């Protein structure tokens, strides 16, 4: 099972929204994955066990795992493309 880090600046506001969207997306596509909500500062300590980073914020550095920007889940613009990109990484 893959592990997804969902990160935002504080780890409490926009990441909460993204987590909820992600749970629905995974359920709709019958995919099981671990979703871990964290702050941008927490990524460093958790990234070794992760397969994908989904974030609303700009990361401080490039990590070895793929990253998907999920700003569209907040603004509504380009949402389908973001969901497709996330699903692609979870195949």
């Amino acid at each position, binding site marked *: 099972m893959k592990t997804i880090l969902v990160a*935002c*600046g*504080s780890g*409490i*506001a*926009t990441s*909460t*929204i993204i987590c*909820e969207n992600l749970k629905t997306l995974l359920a709709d596509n019958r995919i099981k994955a671990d979703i871990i909500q964290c702050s*941008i500062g927490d990524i460093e300590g958790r990234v070794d066990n992760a397969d994908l980073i989904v974030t*609303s*914020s*700009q990361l401080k550095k490039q990590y070895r795992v793929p990253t998907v*920007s999920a*700003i569209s889940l*907040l*603004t*509504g*613009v380009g949402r389908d493309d973001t969901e497709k990109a996330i699903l692609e990484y979870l195949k």
Partner: protein
Amino acid sequence: MGEIRKLLSEKLIMRLQATSHSEAISKMADCLIQEGYAIPAYKEALLKRELEFPTGLQVPAGGIAIPHADSKFVLHEAVALAILAEPVPFQCMDDHEKTVEVDIIMMLAIKHPEKQLATLQEVISMIQDASLLEKLRNAKNALEIMNLLNRKE
């Protein structure tokens, strides 16, 4: 909009004149602090956080910002709403090199993040609602804004 409506009050809705994002954030923070929703350190925390993790969002209906800070500065959960006379640039949440001209700010004073999913979801559905945002911009006063949000339920 039931959850937001519960957290907003006419005192937390304002029309603002500001020349910078920090001035707008400061004025809104002052209001929340004065009304007893946050401790004085909340203002500094918001300004600092906005620099490190900007909250500007480009939505179809314009520029919105959702400043927030750690819950330890919050005494009672609340949402403050400001409509700016003139937009001010905020850095974009997903790309700090870019700015967005923001004229509606929703400041989130979050006390229990785990319990505020419904509120956050309403904020997101609100910022995606172009016709509602236009009505907010044109509203004459705080009471009219409260009524607009009531009607959304």
